[in-house]
């Protein structure tokens, strides 16, 4: 195998921040190469340079041995480079075939040749063993299948180098297995794949070689079979770090949250949450596991008073909070780390201090009478910034200018700092690096030790498995099974997440 792609001595700086510094990266024909590193390590910058979104300040890119300049994304596809972004770029109400050919449609004269499009897509599916129906609409497909459509798009355009950005973030264990097979098949057909990820276990499973980045520099480069998780963490973080947070045995107390026969509709009017029943006790972490889109979001919104409950009941410490105003629910003692940070948790164009007022502004000491107390809010914000190691120039900076991981740390800090009985942590470590992830987990466990109830909602099974005392698996808005820590097993949960009630169960 010879080198398909070489990136030599690539440097890129944004103002004073060196995002990439003399990075060398090679990709061989038909291999899968993983680029790992924490957030802000420079993975995305490197790939954006390759994809033509940025220009390197220094260094050279060679494809098949020839030096190339890629000035914009449209040029990268001409060089056979394609990228599947973390957020899919598909037109929801078009079919698979239409999405694949969009932009490069086969024509007969001036008319779109839909028949040919479908045929081409079908033959591509056959070649790469994708199980897709070209005439299905995107909105009816699962996330895993949508991802396949994205990959098909690249193959249709003749990509030889496929960049997959965090491809497993939204997939279930079995879908991840399938993705692994697809990647193998792509390699067999001579395609080279670059995976960008910060998930270590997947790295081990589906790659040939890996390159580790830290703070813009390459800190490691090896064959996957030579790598161990410990080694990788050390290269990523710069020091040895245990990932697991210790969870001491603990008796749990009275019920904090009780959900009874809850029915909530989604925006299209379907029952997204369908007769959901479960409870959370004091001093207990309950993990709500499920594939994204099985009613978790709607449930959290209903719980927080942001979406109407059709029927059923939610209560906190015996107090009915069904369909109460959001502020009353916060006052009843729920703190919530919202799953969609930018939508629900922060106002990007406000300063950290002002964001601290969100959820808090109504009460002393944050306000007195009709006036806000910025002095107190600033002091608290500065305390949070220190305690949670939020990297920001000051508390007066707009949240927009913080990196995603730091925004998340800040949100967790704010929600934990508010007096509460129940902490709802939805995707609490989305987008944060290993060190911060561990820290956030510690904080959650600390709350448990103080006798608070914790509802952990996550699509990352690892997170659920490592923290939860009990795991509630949600499927199509209802409980597919409840497992204790001892019973928990990844395969079992994985099958429950797909609707298999057979094993385990209540």
């Amino acid at each position: 195998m010879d080198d398909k792609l070489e990136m030599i001595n690539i440097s890129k700086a944004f103002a004073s921040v060196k995002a990439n510094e003399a990075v060398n990266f090679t990709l061989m024909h038909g291999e899968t190469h993983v680029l790992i590193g924490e957030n802000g390590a420079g993975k995305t910058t490197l790939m954006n340079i390759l994809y033509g979104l940025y220009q390197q300040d220094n260094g050279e890119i060679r494809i098949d041995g020839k030096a190339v300049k890629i000035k914009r994304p449209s040029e990268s596809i001409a060089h056979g480079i394609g990228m599947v972004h973390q957020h899919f770029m598909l037109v929801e109400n078009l079919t698979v075939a239409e999405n694949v050919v969009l932009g490069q449609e086969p024509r007969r004269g001036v008319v779109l040749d839909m028949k040919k499009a479908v045929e081409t897509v079908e033959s591509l599916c056959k070649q790469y063993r994708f199980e897709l129906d070209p005439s299905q609409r995107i909105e009816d497909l699962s996330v895993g299948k949508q991802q396949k459509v994205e990959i098909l798009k690249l193959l249709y355009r003749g990509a030889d180098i496929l960049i997959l950005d965090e491809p497993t973030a939204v997939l279930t264990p079995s879908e991840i297995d399938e993705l692994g097979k697809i990647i193998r098949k792509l390699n067999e057909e001579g395609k080279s794949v670059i995976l960008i990820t910060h998930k270590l276990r997947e790295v081990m499973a589906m790659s040939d070689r890996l390159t580790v980045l830290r703070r813009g520099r390459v800190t490691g480069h090896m064959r996957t079979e030579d790598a161990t998780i410990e080694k990788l963490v050390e290269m990523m973080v710069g020091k040895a770090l245990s990932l697991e947070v210790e969870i001491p045995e603990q008796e749990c107390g009275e019920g904090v949250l009780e959900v009874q026969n809850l029915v909530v509709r989604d925006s299209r009017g379907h029952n997204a949450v369908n007769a959901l029943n479960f409870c959370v006790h004091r001093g207990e972490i309950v993990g709500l596991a499920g594939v994204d889109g099985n009613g978790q979001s709607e449930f959290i919104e209903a719980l927080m008073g942001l979406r109407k409950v059709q029927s059923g009941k939610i209560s906190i410490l015996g107090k009915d909070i069904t369909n109460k105003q959001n502020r009353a629910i916060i006052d009843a003692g729920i703190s919530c780390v919202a799953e969609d940070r930018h939508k629900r948790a922060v106002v990007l164009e406000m300063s950290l201090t002002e964001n601290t007022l969100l959820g808090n502004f109504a009460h002393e000491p944050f306000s007195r009478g009709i006036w806000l107390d910025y002095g107190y809010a600033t002091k608290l914000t500065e305390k949070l910034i220190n305690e949670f190691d939020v990297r920001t120039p000051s508390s007066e900076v707009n949240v927009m200018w913080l990196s995603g991981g730091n925004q998340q740390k800040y949100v967790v800090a704010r929600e934990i700092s508010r007096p509460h009985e129940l902490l709802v942590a939805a995707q609490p470590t989305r987008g944060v690096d290993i060190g911060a992830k561990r820290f956030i987990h510690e904080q959650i466990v600390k709350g448990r030790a103080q006798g608070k109830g914790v509802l952990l909602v996550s699509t990352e099974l690892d997170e659920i498995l490592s923290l939860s005392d009990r795991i509630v698996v949600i499927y199509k808005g209802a409980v597919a099974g409840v497992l204790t820590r001892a019973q928990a097993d990844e395969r079992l949960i994985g099958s429950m997440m797909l609707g298999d009630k057979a094993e385990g169960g209540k």
Partner: protein
Amino acid sequence: MGRKTKTQALSAVAPIFSIIVALLASALFVMWAKSMSVSEYFSALRLLLDIIITESLSTPQKFMEVLVYATPLLFCGLAHIICFRCGLFNIGVEGQFIMGMVGGALIGQLQGVPMLLHIALMVLAGIICGGLWGFLPGILKAKRGTNEVVVCIMTNFIAMYISNYIALRSVFADSQHDSSYTIQPHAQLPRFVPTSRLNISVFMAIILAFCVYLLLFWSKRGFQIRAVGLNASAAEAGGVNTTWNIVLALVISGAIAGVGGALQISGVQTRLISMASFPNYGFDAIPVALLCNKNPLACVLVAILFGALRNCSRMFQIEGIPKDIVYVIQAIIIFFVAADLITKHLNKRRRA
């Protein structure tokens, strides 16, 4: 200016730049209007600046006249700011201002009310009428999800025709003039000098600008309004009742415009004059609110600037330049302010 002096000072760069460019570009139109040749660009520019400066600053009288124009612009600009901050476009400021005039003109005709009380009553009438005209689109948006812009356009027309009805056909109409009867002397705001229409409403407007600043940046209510404007979903999740704040923003905005209208009657017009078309107080204040970047304190300066431009229009005509050049200048300013906003928006999207 409070807590964010540095960033706010920086954000003044774009507006100032756009004013300069607008003046430079408008000189081209002066050349065109006066059939000057290209080589005379600088004399055209000098003529333009000359007219603006002489007309606004050469005598105290003239500056007072600038302030007469600036006062309603400031009231309406502040009204726009409240709604812009809440993420709303209150195009109904025009109608709310007119309703304030209606309220003021009616109350102003009451007899035997002592002066201070009379003016206070007129202000109150302005608040109620303008506030009601803000409440209508607000409550419709909150309860029925209608678009506030569409409703406001309709309420503007209703306001204008109510005003015309009162000025022309009601018992308050003065059949000698196309207007209502002049308000009682007690209801008229004191003027500083007999030769100018300038009155103390200009100070009331400036004090109000400061109040709006306090409201927006230091009060709980203002925080909620701004949070709804910047990210309604996050505000909602942070305990802010978005619907209520939207209604309230429109009501406050309408009330401010209404006070402006009432004081315009009390201080300048002294009666409700029939309108062939909209008087444009509210519409002209849209660029004011945009150019000051929705900052109520900066709004004072921008209102004076636009008042000065307005005040020049007669002189432009005398000089043989179409008075619409004032609108050309405003339009170019808005063009650059909008371009600045769009680039900021795009940058933000690229970061996200």
